[in-house]
């Protein structure tokens, strides 16, 4: 894929061969396997996959917040601004968390400490990473609240006095309080009402630009990806199976799983009785299929698929796919297209 020299220059985040497992008494859960992912400065990466695909584990891995035990980061590198986060000490990591990489969590109802006023929860973040007094930090916390659209008078309120959407705004205020270079949003709107979802997304989009941050947006909603992301990584059973520019991916999804995902989005234009679904279920992460983990559910599968683990292939410039069959087909169609001209 991309060589290391280029990483040092252009990329904010470069994850290489990351493997994370949960070791339990009943077996080893292969949550993330040989994951590779790149994120440029100012980019927004959509991280798409079903529940259990390993998206949140990857995010927590970047933060080095995998609960351990049972979580173990087996191998790989997470290069952030050129330095490997996995080699940092716990104290060094604390200086990264919040200040350089901040996270927005899925459920705003439970993400805030119920016995602490929201201004204190924001100020805690500011006090940790900036040399300001308590009073200044609280004042800045009020500014942050106003920035996310909450009146300053409410800064001394407790989380239970806010609605779900407001709480998520508070969580966003905490995440952005120290102007992080990278924002990881783990399904930030899943727990919210649809109308509130749009508002929160709009807010995140605006603030991301205002703060000039890069963002990883974890979601299973392809509509959200289309709206805010620049690039998309599709994750299946702990691996990235397709990684491309948003437009390229939406115009021409290559991996059979991605195609399945797009087909399962209802299209009102088409008059169809039933929604196309991907046959079968996500494999048990304790017992993954051999070779390509998607082969049991794949209509394109050949004899080769259960045998060899597919590598990422650059099927078109900047469009990577972990499926030799489809990559070859893409190459074929392109060369045919070339002949026709």
């Amino acid at each position, binding site marked *: 894929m991309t060589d290391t020299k280029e990483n040092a220059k252009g990329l904010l985040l470069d994850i290489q061969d990351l493997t994370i497992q949960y070791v339990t008494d009943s077996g080893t859960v292969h949550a993330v396997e040989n994951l590779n992912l790149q994120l440029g400065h100012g980019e927004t990466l959509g991280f798409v996959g079903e529940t259990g695909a390993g998206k949140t584990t990857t995010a927590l891995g970047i*933060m080095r*917040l995998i*609960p351990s035990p049972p979580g173990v980061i087996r191998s790989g590198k997470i290069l952030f601004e050129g330095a490997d986060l996995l080699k940092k000490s*716990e104290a060094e*990591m*604390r*200086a*990264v*968390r*919040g*200040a350089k990489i*901040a*996270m927005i*969590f899925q*459920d705003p109802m*439970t*993400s*805030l*400490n*119920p*016995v*602490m006023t929201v201004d204190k*929860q924001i100020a*805690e*973040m500011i006090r*940790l*990473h900036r040399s300001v007094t308590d009073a200044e930090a609280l004042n800045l916390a009020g500014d942050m609240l106003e920035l996310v659209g909450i009146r300053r008078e409410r800064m001394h309120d*407790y989380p*239970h*006095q806010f609605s779900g959407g407001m709480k998520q705004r508070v*969580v966003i205020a*905490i995440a952005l309080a120290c102007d992080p270079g990278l924002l990881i949003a783990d399904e930030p709107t899943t727990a919210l009402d649809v109308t509130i979802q749009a508002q929160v997304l709009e807010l995140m989009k605006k603030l991301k630009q205002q703060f000039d941050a890069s963002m990883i947006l974890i979601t299973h909603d392809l509509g959200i990806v289309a709206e805010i992301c620049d690039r998309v990584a599709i994750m299946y059973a702990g691996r990235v199976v397709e990684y491309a520019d948003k437009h390229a991916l939406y115009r021409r999804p290559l991996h059979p799983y991605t195609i399945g995902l797009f087909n399962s989005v209802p299209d009102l234009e088409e008059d169809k009785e039933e929604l196309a679904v991907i046959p079968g279920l996500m494999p048990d992460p304790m017992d993954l299929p051999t070779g390509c983990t998607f082969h049991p559910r794949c209509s394109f599968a050949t004899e080769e698929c259960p045998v060899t683990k597919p590598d990422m292939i650059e099927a078109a410039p900047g469009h990577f796919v972990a499926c030799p069959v489809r990559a070859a087909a893409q190459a074929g169609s392109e060369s045919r297209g070339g002949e026709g001209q």
Partner: protein
Amino acid sequence: MIRYVIRRILFLIPVLIGVAFCVFTLLYLTPGDPARMILGDMATEEAIREFRVKEGLDGPFLVQFGNYIYKAVTRGDIGRSYVTKRPVLDEIMTVFPATLKLSAFAIIIAIIIGMPCGILSAIKQYSIFDTLTMIFAMVGLSMPVFWLGLLLILYFSVHLRWLPSSGFDTFRAMILPSVALSAQSISMITRMTRSSMLEVVRADYIRTARSKGQKESVVIWVHALHNALIPVVTLCGLQFGHLLAGAILTESIFAIPGVGRLMVESIKARDYPIVQGGVLFVAITFSVVNLLVDLLYAYIDPRIKAQYK
């Protein structure tokens, strides 16, 4: 908040009348005539009749009960001891300080030992410390207080001769009874703290605190502990109420002149007014402690406070 307190105090009234009624009925139905007990076998029928009239024991049940409540409410008079002839309230107040001291000592021991053990157990879940603590907690919870008390006396007083086995005047004399009385509370507080802490440590807001770059020690001791202690505080309050009310066995074993022992002796002597007064007193103490715990609860949990408005 003040309205809540007033409402809670008003709620106490029916509770106390109910308690008084139950005790009154129970003793009324118990076989054995207080007049005969107090005046002795040699007393004449006339003397017994006279005693009954004088003590108001000749009226119908409800009249007797009504009188009792009336006097208690208007004059704070809950009767006189048949035996010592002193007002019941005075009798109880003489012995209450000993019980209060014993219970306070026991709950302080229980909190000082129970909470840290529970927290450490949770932080080091499945470690040797955790396993040992849980074993001790199980033993402490299952061991009857009279048995533990006797063992303590046997070992520390009789065998080692370190501490006195009875009396309650010196600090040294208080050690054994307090330890015996606190054993169950230590165990319960340990277990509750541990499970509450384990639950809280997995909460999303703890992850949020970590994701801010906060130190693990602050995450545990500030964010987790405050939340984990909410149910523990309730338990401590309830335990303190129990200790105040339930030190009977401990007081008997260690010969401590407390409310519990007074009640046991009064039951033996059929000194009804003391028994009634004692139970009522215990009920009031328990309710007041409970009220205080609820107010404390509002103080440490803003969500509860919001409900009180």
